[in-house]
């Protein structure tokens, strides 16, 4: 089968072998969970419980207002201990609800299955919203919103993003292997909701077993196809994946729906059938715990709100030369200063990187080698953007597309002068936003 890809990009070492063969394991219930009220893009939720309240697994404990928002549920049963600000893995300190486990994991209700074919589209969307499902690739965009494109933007193609192009991470890969039926069921549900004619599952070539398995399972369905894509970073970036699969360019500042496409991550699609069929909310997710600093890398199914510490301990703890703890992958993930931060809905991996891997070499001035230009998947000229930002020429930087940067990290990865290009561009985006407001 023909392998598709996008222009430019890079190929960092994969390090996937650390956890690729590890079956997903459940970890013991943590003593405490910290459930963040800002796990999604949009305004934070408001708690509807107070300290001292008893909660059951799956009980709604906070809800949001407005359109782009999401619900938050208790991920285990127990007592609400505190509602306070705690560090979150996205680097902020949002309000969180701390629940002390009673060890029983008592569910709110019996989660009985219904046949989703009988449900109306509105009802299905409603159930997805109620279950608090957000994009689980990292951006955490509320899924029900994504599945409700405006009428004048009809969706013809649904894409499952199974690229998992970030090095180290294997959670999506494992899920595709172990939960393929759920994935396909979710796919069918979403297709029905969107009214899309076809689905393409884009998977990087380095996950051959997943490609083969899904190919076999979809052989009888003509409207679902599996498309291998080249193992190249950032293949899984939404816009680049659409470009690779369909040759459609999402306009700058636009969304996939502008070109008739909706993209969902593997984890999101897998979470959908449960919500639609049983109304059971999203209270757990699969996280890859890996990196040279983790003694036994594993793929774990964990409750939302479990502190990183519990995950790391379950994997044998940290080696003493661990230098960085990262939420997500090494290219776009966020460095942590503590392992007390909890897993949130967007946490795809917990990495412990050692000194020798993350060693930042000395910074030189730009020698204009053009590597960043040849790498940038968005066709930007990072070196020039960075100079413009540094010298406060924000208008010109904006004109040259700074806001289109997806912060994938490719430019900084290849830069021989070790210039923190991405960080500078992030600062520049902030400054441009300030300037425009």
């Amino acid at each position, binding site marked *: 089968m023909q392998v598709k890809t996008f222009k430019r990009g890079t190929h960092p070492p994969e390090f996937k072998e650390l956890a690729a063969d590890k079956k997903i394991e459940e970890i013991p219930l943590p003593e405490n969970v910290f459930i963040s009220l800002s796990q999604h893009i949009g305004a934070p939720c408001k708690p509807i419980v107070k300290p001292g309240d008893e909660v059951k697994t799956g009980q709604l404990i906070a809800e949001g207002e407005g359109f782009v928002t999401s619900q938050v549920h208790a991920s285990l049963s127990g007592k609400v201990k505190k509602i306070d*600000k705690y*560090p979150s893995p996205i*680097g902020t*300190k949002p309000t969180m609800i701390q629940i002390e486990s009673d060890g029983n994991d008592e569910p709110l209700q019996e989660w009985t299955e219904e046949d989703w074919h009988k449900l109306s589209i509105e009802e299905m969307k409603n159930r997805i919203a109620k279950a608090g499902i957000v994009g689980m690739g990292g951006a955490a965009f509320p899924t029900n919103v994504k599945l409700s494109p405006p009428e004048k933007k009809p969706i013809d193609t649904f894409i499952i993003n199974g690229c998992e192009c970030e090095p180290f991470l294997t959670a999506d890969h494992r899920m595709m292997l172990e939960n393929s039926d759920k994935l396909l069921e979710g796919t069918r549900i979403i297709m029905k909701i969107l009214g899309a004619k076809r689905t393409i599952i884009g998977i990087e070539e380095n996950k051959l077993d997943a490609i083969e398995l899904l190919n076999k399972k979809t052989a009888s369905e003509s409207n679902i196809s599996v498309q291998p894509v080249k193992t190249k970073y950032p293949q899984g970036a939404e816009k680049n994946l659409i470009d690779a699969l369909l040759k459609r360019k999402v306009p700058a500042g636009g969304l996939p729906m502008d070109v008739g496409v909706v993209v969902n991550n593997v984890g999101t699609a897998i979470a959908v059938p449960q919500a639609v069929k049983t109304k059971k909310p999203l209270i757990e997710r699969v996280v890859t715990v890996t990196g040279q600093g983790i003694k036994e890398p594993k793929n774990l199914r964990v409750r939302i709100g479990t502190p990183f510490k519990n995950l790391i301990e379950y994997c044998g703890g940290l080696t003493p030369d661990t230098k960085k703890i990262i939420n997500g992958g090494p290219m776009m993930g966020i*460095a*942590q*200063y*503590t392992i007390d931060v909890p897993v949130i809905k967007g946490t795809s991996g917990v990495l412990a990187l050692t000194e020798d891997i993350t060693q*930042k070499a000395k910074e030189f001035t730009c020698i204009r080698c053009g590597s960043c230009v040849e790498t940038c998947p968005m066709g930007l000229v990072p070196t020039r953007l960075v100079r413009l930002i540094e010298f406060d020429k924000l208008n010109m930087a904006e004109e040259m597309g700074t806001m289109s940067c997806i912060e994938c990290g490719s430019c900084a990865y290849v830069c021989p002068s070790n210039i*923190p290009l991405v*960080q*500078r561009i*992030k*600062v520049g985006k*902030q*400054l441009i936003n300030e300037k425009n407001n």
Partner: protein
Amino acid sequence: MNPILLAALSMGGIGLAFSILLTIANKKLKVEDDPKIAQVEDALPGVNCGACGYPGCAACAEALVKGDVGISICPVCDDDEREELANILGVELGEGKREVAVLFCQGGNDNAKVKADYEGISTCLAASFQSGGERACDYGCIGKGDCVSVCDFDAIHMGEQGLPVIDRQKCTACGACVEACPRDIIELHPIDRHVFVLCKNEDKGAAARKVCDRACIACKICEKFDDSGGFHVDNFLAKVDYDKYDKDYEKPTGKCPTNVIQLVGEKDEE
């Protein structure tokens, strides 16, 4: 013909021809401009030397009227011409109560706890995206000196403690540092104000104490001590009410257990 006469005639002829042409052109082709621009242009030297970076005095005048540049742009002008320009443009220096910038943090190297190492661009703004860099306090100074680098008046320096030190004499209250600080811990205050609560930490006492030795722990001792109601603790942070606070400013200092209430500047400052 006499050559002198001839010379005069031909020069006169050329001159006459062109001046007639120009006079007619001036009438027929006249376009109305902002009269202020013309005025400013007149006040400028009119040598069109281009030293200002604009392609001639007219362009420079336009920029001046628009307010894109200051009067000092023209290197050829003398003081008189500058004064004239200032009159036309209506630029005046407003006189008001002098203000100075005050830093509301004492979390220097000795006092602030460190939570992590930081690698990357050494600016406060960049560090603020990475959980705020080394120091543990979420409200205090990040210490990378963005305020120092934006100050055009050489009035802020990075002190030994890794905290910016403001020179009250040099400060012009331009507000650049206030804008630049991502933690909003620099404020402008009248120069005759001396008592400040030098902390912005709104965490509960225990949490605040954990991150800094000089954090307001909301103990309310200052409230009790100052009976005029000059201090009140709000959202776990003490604040001064300058309307109520009597000017006897040495009163509450020294009573604060974490020394966040401090005197800044001298009493006899202007």
